[in-house]
């Protein structure tokens, strides 16, 4: 298995694609593989693109990629679409808007299905980011599923989060709400040629001003107007992304943010590991179903039972 990691580090696209599948399938070997990948990560700038369905995330991703390629930067793209909660299948349709990059060996596009994860990403997206980073991509762009209001996981994965909005999807109150509107390092008002675009731009600017009054922050999210299909405003967007990237580096915020992300990721891994271990022990000895019978018969209660189980596995010293 270390061979595949070596191949990825040497630049084999095939090996990277295979490795991503292993990680995506949560193969038992994945943890060890990610352990060997980890030392090679931390160089890519991770750009998150999020927003409601149909706001133009994929098209913007395509245009941003093209601009980065003009600068001879290499780009990995992860495009996420939802899995069906009923069949588990998925129709992954983002790639269709990313045709400009087709045939460019310096661009690697991977579609991912959410596989039941609800935060706007797949469970393993952060690991796939690391694989592309280790492979040597200068930029990794993560396009989330079309989000509603509450899917903010991207902010934990990306260095720079772009929230894409389009006119016609709601009134002022929408832009005042919590959730997605709170995670933007940059706002994009896309489809700016449609009616309602100026009103939306104004609303978002008002929100940004309100935020600045409510709490002092060293970074004020810019609001960029684009018509992605016609490539209008996309240069300004990438300039704004550059500015945020410089801000992160110069202010030390990049280091602080990544430390916090590392802390959260490590905690999550620890939680997974503990629950896997504990559940293996609890479910492995065959007494669990007997316990459930007793609880159903009201001879025991679930609250005390759980405490008892945990204290036998982790006896107090």
């Amino acid at each position, binding site marked *: 298995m270390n061979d595949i990691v070596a191949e990825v580090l040497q630049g084999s696209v095939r090996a990277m694609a295979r490795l991503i599948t292993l990680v995506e399938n949560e193969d038992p070997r994945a943890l060890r593989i990610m352990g060997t990948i980890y030392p090679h990560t931390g160089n890519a700038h991770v750009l998150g693109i999020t927003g409601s369905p149909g706001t133009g995330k994929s098209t913007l991703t395509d245009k941003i990629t093209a601009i980065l390629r003009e600068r001879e930067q290499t780009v990995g793209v992860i495009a996420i679409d939802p899995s069906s909660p009923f*069949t588990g299948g998925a129709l992954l349709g983002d790639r269709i808007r990313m045709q400009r990059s087709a045939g460019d060996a310096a661009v690697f596009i991977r579609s991912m299905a959410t596989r039941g994860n609800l935060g706007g990403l797949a469970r393993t997206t952060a690991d796939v980011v690391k694989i592309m980073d280790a492979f040597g991509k200068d930029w990794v762009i993560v396009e989330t599923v079309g989000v509603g209001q509450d899917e903010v996981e991207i902010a934990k994965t990306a260095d720079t989060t772009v929230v894409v909005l389009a006119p016609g999807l709601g009134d002022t109150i929408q832009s005042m709400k919590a959730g997605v509107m709170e995670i933007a390092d940059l706002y994009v008002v896309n489809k700016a040629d449609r009616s309602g675009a100026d009103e939306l731009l104004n609303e978002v600017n008002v929100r940004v001003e309100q935020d600045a009054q409510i709490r002092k922050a060293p970074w004020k999210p810019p609001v960029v107007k684009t018509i992605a299909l016609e490539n209008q405003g996309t240069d300004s967007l990438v300039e704004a992304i550059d500015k945020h990237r410089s801000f992160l580096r110069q202010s030390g915020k990049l280091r602080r943010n990544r430390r916090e992300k590392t802390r959260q990721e490590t905690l999550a891994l620890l939680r997974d590991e503990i629950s896997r271990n504990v559940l293996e022990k609890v479910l492995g000895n065959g007494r669990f179903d007997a316990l459930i019978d007793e609880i159903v018969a009201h001879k025991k209660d679930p609250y005390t039972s759980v405490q008892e189980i945990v204290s036998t596995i982790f006896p107090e010293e």
Partner: protein
Amino acid sequence: MTAKKRIKVIMAKPGLDGHDRGAKLLARVFAEAGMEVVYTGLRQTPEMIVDAALQEDADVVGLSSLSGVHNYFFPRVVELLKEKGLGDVLVVGGGIIPEEDIAGLRKAGVAGIFGPGTRTDDIIKFIENHTSRS
């Protein structure tokens, strides 16, 4: 639903014909059957299709052609897949394929050819039976 291997399909229309109702329907049919389907859309070159298969680590490439270009495009996709070390990817095709072309396409490495009127269940079964990773 997590941690389960799923069949990954690239659904593509090579060549210049602009009719993708069949391809889109099948993309949905495969997704409903629990597969993860990357729909790449119209006017794909064999190179684009194979690039997508490579990056997506696809198990299956589904090709649809209604304009009579299948005898060039389908074998070309198979050939390019082999060149890239993706010889284990299952290639299936559909659309308007004359009876007399089928044997040649099979010989060229297109594992399954499905013309109009094929039951979608049969295509799903064919794919499930011919992919090792399902």
